[in-house]
């Protein structure tokens, strides 16, 4: 097979475009989530997405569009639970996560069990992304760029030292809510690329790799975006070429980038000591 043959298919270009847009907003939002120690938020909300997707199948409506409000409402629930001093933040995430999976499995069973479509959402199928979903991803990518540009200094200050941000007059509650609700939306749209099982990796891994080498916040955002975009392009290419699941290949490439960076850093450190 000609290794460049895939680029002659229009659905591949649609997948690349959709994937790149998803990579942009997940890596940008993910950087703040990782630094704010909210990485597990992605995991919990993706599990909740299973409920939303299942409701979509049960009611025979678009699973992604049903999952969107369900996950956003759960994100607001997490905020409410974490504000309750009687429950730790990670416990709140665990509770919501368990609720999401349990309900999701029951609704999926009622909707006729795990069919091919549901498996697509569980493990991702970027190659089947529709034009409407690409459009939704584009809207989210633009909104995330606006959100981060407008609140950049507030977000950085809040991530660095929330008490300082509050005394500087930053409405931290409003911006935190906005960030989490936005993360929820990003997670739902990103399901198409890598699936419920792996979407949190798309949020965690590129920023984690970027944080190893960047010496400024802006560079972290740029590197994170670059790593994520590269993994989408390479992931689509290799998964098509080798006939492997695209979501898994995308995440493995992301992890490969992280491990290479960690390895090179370790080698440099060793050489310095020697």
């Amino acid at each position, binding site marked *: 097979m000609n290794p460049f043959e895939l680029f002659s298919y229009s659905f591949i270009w649609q997948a690349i475009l959709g994937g790149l847009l998803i990579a942009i907003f997940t890596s940008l939002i993910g950087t703040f989530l990782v*630094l*704010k*120690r909210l990485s597990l938020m992605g995991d919990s909300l993706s599990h909740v997405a299973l409920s939303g997707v299942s409701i979509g199948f049960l009611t025979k409506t678009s699973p992604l569009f049903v999952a969107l409000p369900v996950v956003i409402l759960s994100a607001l629930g997490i905020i409410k639970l974490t504000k309750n*001093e009687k429950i730790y933040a990670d416990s709140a995430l665990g509770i919501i996560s368990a609720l999401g999976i349990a309900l999701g499995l029951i609704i999926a069973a009622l909707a006729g069990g795990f069919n091919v479509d549901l498996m697509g959402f569980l493990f991702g199928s970027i190659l089947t992304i529709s034009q409407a979903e690409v459009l939704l991803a584009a809207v989210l990518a633009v909104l995330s760029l606006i959100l981060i*540009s*407008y609140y*950049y*200094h*507030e977000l*950085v*200050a809040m*991530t*660095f*030292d929330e*008490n*300082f*941000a*509050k*005394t*500087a*007059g*930053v409405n931290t509650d409003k911006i935190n809510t906005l960030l989490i609700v936005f993360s929820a939306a990003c997670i739902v749209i990103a399901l198409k690329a890598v699936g419920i099982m792996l979407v949190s990796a798309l949020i965690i891994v590129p920023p984690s790799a970027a*944080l190893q080498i*960047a*010496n*400024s*916040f802006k*560079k*972290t955002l740029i590197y994170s975006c670059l790593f994520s975009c590269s993994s989408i392009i390479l992931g689509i290419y290799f998964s098509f070429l080798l006939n492997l699941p695209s979501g898994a290949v995308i995440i493995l490439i992301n992890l490969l980038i992280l491990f290479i960076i960690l390895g090179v850093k370790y080698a440099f450190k060793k050489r310095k000591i020697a």
Partner: protein
Amino acid sequence: MNLIEAKNISHAYRGQQVLSKVSFSLKEGTWTALIGPNGSGKTTLIKLILGLLPLQSGRLTLWQKNPASELGYLEQKITPPRLMPLTAFEVVKMGLLSTKKGFKIFNKEDLKTALNMMRTTNCFKYRNKLFTELSGGQQQRVLLARTLINKPKLIILDEPTTALDSTSRESFFELLSKLNKEQNTTILLITHDIAEIGKYATDFMVLDKELIFSGTKEEFCSSEAVANYFGSYTQHIMDHLHSEESCPFPAHIHNHEHASTEAK
């Protein structure tokens, strides 16, 4: 002019009272040392003033409705994310956040101000280093620069010199003293080190869930309430605070103690 007026402030955490009917006022241009044992409610009180905790009861009036741009706050220690990719310079620049609107674009003048402030607080040489890679003392100097950069009317400090060595502590307080005298900056400082702060503070507040004392240094030195509260430690405290002009009561005790030591 009073910058802060507090009336009957009470606060409880999970039913446990940490502040009880605290009333005081903070005059502009004063340097007030807020002292009290651990768990006496000092940090709670300043968090209420800063708006970091919601007011449960009482009334708290600040000199203006939205004082963020005229308020500086420095904690004992902050714990940013370990991998936070921010340089010392970027942290100092952050101090100008409350003066910006919209997209908050920093101009050349802002950058110059940040660099000058870093020179003033002796942290200019590590401006390009990551904040998280600096030592505790270096971090505290960077945070002081961030606190002072927008020339606040009121600076609230919560045991800010814990991570500093004695020389750095001295220069830290000298800098605050200069601001207090030359720019009439009001300072409210939580401290356990009465010996050190006695040289600079003009006013004292003693808190132990309720307000034991609030007044000038002279009043503090001769206060019955202070003597009753500290009991046998009063003399020790006053010895540290002793200053010929402003504290006649300890001077008497001080001289007496010396005389009796010499007699031995």
